[in-house]
C-alpha cells in the first residue's frame, strides 16, 4: 500500500478507530487490582499494523491513539506514562520481528511486547514518583503481562488470517 493512497488513509483511520474502541472497551472491564496492570487490548492494533505494514505506521497509530485516549479519558501525565510503555513495547516487538522473523511466533512476540509495556510503565512511574521501590511491582506485573500478552497474541493470530486477505485484495 502506498502511503499517500486513499486505501492507506482509510486503513489507518480504521485501525485508529479500532484502537480507540478497544481502549474504551478496556475501561469497561473491571481493573486488575494492581497499579498499572491492564489487559492491553489496544496493543492488538499495534501488533497487527506492525506485522502487516511496518514500524512507522504502527508508531503513528500508537501516538495518535494514546494522545486521543489521554484527552478523552485521562490526562496529560498519563500520556507520558502510556507512551513510554507503548513505545518501548513497539520498539522491542519491531526488533524481535526484524531479527527473529520466522523463528518466533506472533503469540510470543505479543508476550514480549506486553512484558515490555509493563516494564516501560514501571520505569516511567519510577521517574514520576522518584522512587526505586516500585521495582517490587515488576514480578507480578510481568506475570500478568504474560497472560494478557497471550490473549492479545492469539487474537492477533486469528485476525491476521483475514487481515492478509483484506490487504492483498486489489493492491493499488
Amino acid at each position, binding site marked *: 500500500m502506498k502511503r499517500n493512497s486513499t486505501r492507506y488513509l482509510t486503513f489507518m483511520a480504521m485501525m485508529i478507530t479500532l484502537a480507540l474502541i478497544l481502549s474504551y472497551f478496556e475501561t469497561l472491564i473491571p481493573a486488575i487490582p494492581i497499579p*498499572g496492570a491492564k489487559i492491553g487490548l489496544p496493543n492488538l492494533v499495534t501488533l497487527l499494523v506492525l506485522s502487516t505494514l511496518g514500524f512507522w505506521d504502527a508508531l503513528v497509530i500508537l501516538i495518535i491513539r494514546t494522545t486521543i485516549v489521554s484527552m478523552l479519558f485521562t490526562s496529560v501525565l498519563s500520556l507520558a506514562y502510556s507512551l513510554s510503555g507503548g513505545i518501548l513495547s513497539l520498539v522491542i516487538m519491531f526488533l524481535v520481528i526484524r531479527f527473529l522473523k520466522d523463528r518466533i511466533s506472533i503469540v510470543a512476540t505479543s508476550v514480549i511486547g506486553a512484558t515490555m509495556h509493563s516494564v516501560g510503565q514501571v520505569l516511567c512511574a519510577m521517574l514520576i514518583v*522518584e522512587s526505586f*521501590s516500585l521495582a517490587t511491582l515488576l514480578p507480578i506485573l510481568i506475570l500478568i503481562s504474560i497472560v494478557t500478552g497471550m490473549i492479545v497474541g492469539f487474537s492477533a493470530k486469528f485476525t491476521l488470517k483475514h487481515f492478509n486477505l483484506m490487504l492483498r485484495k486489489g493492491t493499488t
Partner: protein
Amino acid sequence: MKKKEIVILAIVVVVLAAVLLLMNVIGGNGQRKLVITIDGQEYQTITLTEETNMHFTVETPDGVNEVVITNGVVDVVSADCHNQVCVDTRPASKVFDKIVCLPHKLILEIVGDNGEVDYQ
C-alpha cells in the same frame, strides 16, 4: 506458539512465581510499618500492628487521598485524582505491598521494620 517458546515461557513463569513466593515469605513475618512518600520525600511513617486503626487524609500538592487503616490493613478509600487507580488498588497489608497514586506522586508502601527492605 512453538515448543521452544512454551518451554522458555514456562521457565520464566516458574522463576517469577518463585520470586513472588519468596517475597511473600520474607514479607510474612516481623514488624511492619507504613511509609508514605510524596514526590520522593518521606511524608509519614506509621508502625502497623493488628490493632492499628486510623482514618486520615494525605494532602499532596496535587490533591488529597483519604486513607483508612483497619486492623493494620491499609486502603485508600477515596481520592480526587483523575484515574482512581489508588482507590481501585487492593488494600496493602504485607511487606512489599504498595498503593501508588501517580497523579499525586504518592506511594503508600508496607516496609519491614528490620531494615531488610530499605530503599534510597
